[in-house]
């Protein structure tokens, strides 16, 4: 029977090993969410443009990214970039770019559904007032679409936060890596993995609770 002694887990261990990884995971999540939504919105607009020259590349990109395991994209990007540009760019930067590129494909599908959830009459109304396509999107359609999408965005972000642990493949120092190294140095690998799981659980569970609360608040009255 395994007896768990977690007394080794103290503030010193946290600041020495875990904090750095936690900050990187959070930073990666935030940057990939924001970047993914921005790039994903453009991809969604391309796919909805009805112009073949925009629709096909965007569709190809989204379908490809959604069909490949993330860990492979992370690895390939990390290995290919030095060959393409002639020098390595480091695990952190590589991971950040990969996550934006990968998440953009998923966010674009959410944004596309969000845009389509705005009634066609709203588009007509904006157009009838003389707004250009860009103004109509920016001022009428996207604000409503994003409000409808906030809960789905947050759910995707929670998944994204868990997925950041995949950067172990290229040796970046994230939250999981912090626990792993601490476990090795303290000779307590099992305990630290359990603590890691608990940490992920607490963060993700709190976020899902927050999603519920926000969901109720942002609903548009029609």
């Amino acid at each position, binding site marked *: 029977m395994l007896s768990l002694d977690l007394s080794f887990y103290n503030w010193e261990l946290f600041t020495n090993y875990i904090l750095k990884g936690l900050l990187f995971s959070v930073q990666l999540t935030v940057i990939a969410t924001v970047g993914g939504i921005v790039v994903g919105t453009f991809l969604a607009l391309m796919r909805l443009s009805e112009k073949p020259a925009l629709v096909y590349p965007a569709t190809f990109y989204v379908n490809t990214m959604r069909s490949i395991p993330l860990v492979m994209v992370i690895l390939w990007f990390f290995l290919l970039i030095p060959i393409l540009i002639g020098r390595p760019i480091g695990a952190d930067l590589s991971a950040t770019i990969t996550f934006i590129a990968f998440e953009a494909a998923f966010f674009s599908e959410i944004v596309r559904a969000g845009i389509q959830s705005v009634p066609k009459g709203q588009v007509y109304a904006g157009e009838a*007032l003389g707004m250009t396509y860009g103004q109509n999107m920016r001022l009428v359609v996207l604000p*409503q679409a994003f409000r409808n999408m906030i809960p789905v965005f947050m759910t995707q972000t929670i998944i994204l936060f868990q997925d950041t642990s995949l950067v172990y493949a290229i040796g970046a120092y994230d939250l999981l890596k912090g626990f792993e190294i601490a476990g090795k140095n303290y000779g307590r690998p099992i305990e630290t993995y359990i603590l890691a799981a608990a940490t992920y659980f607490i963060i993700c569970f709190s976020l899902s609770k927050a999603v519920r609360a926000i969901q109720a608040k942002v609903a548009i009255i029609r």
Partner: protein
Amino acid sequence: MIELRNVSKWYGSFQVLTDCTTSIEKGEVVVICGPSGSGKSTLIKTINALEPFQQGEISVDGINLHDPKTNLSKLRARVGMVFQHFELFPHLSVTENLTLAQMKVLGRSADEANTHGLRYLERVGLLAQKDKFPGQLSGGQQQRVAIARALSMDPIVMLFDEPTSALDPEMVGEVLDVMVKLANEGMTMCCVTHEMGFARKVSHRVIFMDQGRIVEDCSKAEFFDKPEARSPRAKEFLSKILAN
């Protein structure tokens, strides 16, 4: 002011408009009626190019819609439109609904747009609701705000696409009152509506459509007072709608 010549439109192989020709003069109030599916809403939407058409010509104030060089947004800014389902922007307050396009499309300052928008809101009797959101208003109130929103752009013509069809019966009157007032002030209006009382009271001309064609296009007096001279379809429609 508005000219339609042989306008035809297809959805795929289905023809929704066939050879529609008519014109609307400045200051004229024209009512378009007809059974559902007759193409009235589609026709009125082609006038401000919300619906494309494949054949024929439409010109508004001398500007040809068919010309690829025509800036459709600029044209639409001068043509007011009121929709069946109001289509106020639900994420914006009443005042913001009134001022958004004035500022972004006409380039008016926030102050100017506010003063102007609120003046029209007062005219439709809803100044007290200026800070509310559309979802907090009744259907009739929303439609009156929508009319004020369109008027805030100082349009040369107002298009109404079944403005009272989505309203509870007790709210139809308040919207029609606003429209009657507008007609009496000399606004050029084109209204798709089943409100024959409104047509009788203020319209100059009645267009009757059936299966995508303009079947009748005559003065109000002729349309209502000489039913014997009307086509069988129009007679049938009139007898049904006037029986109510």
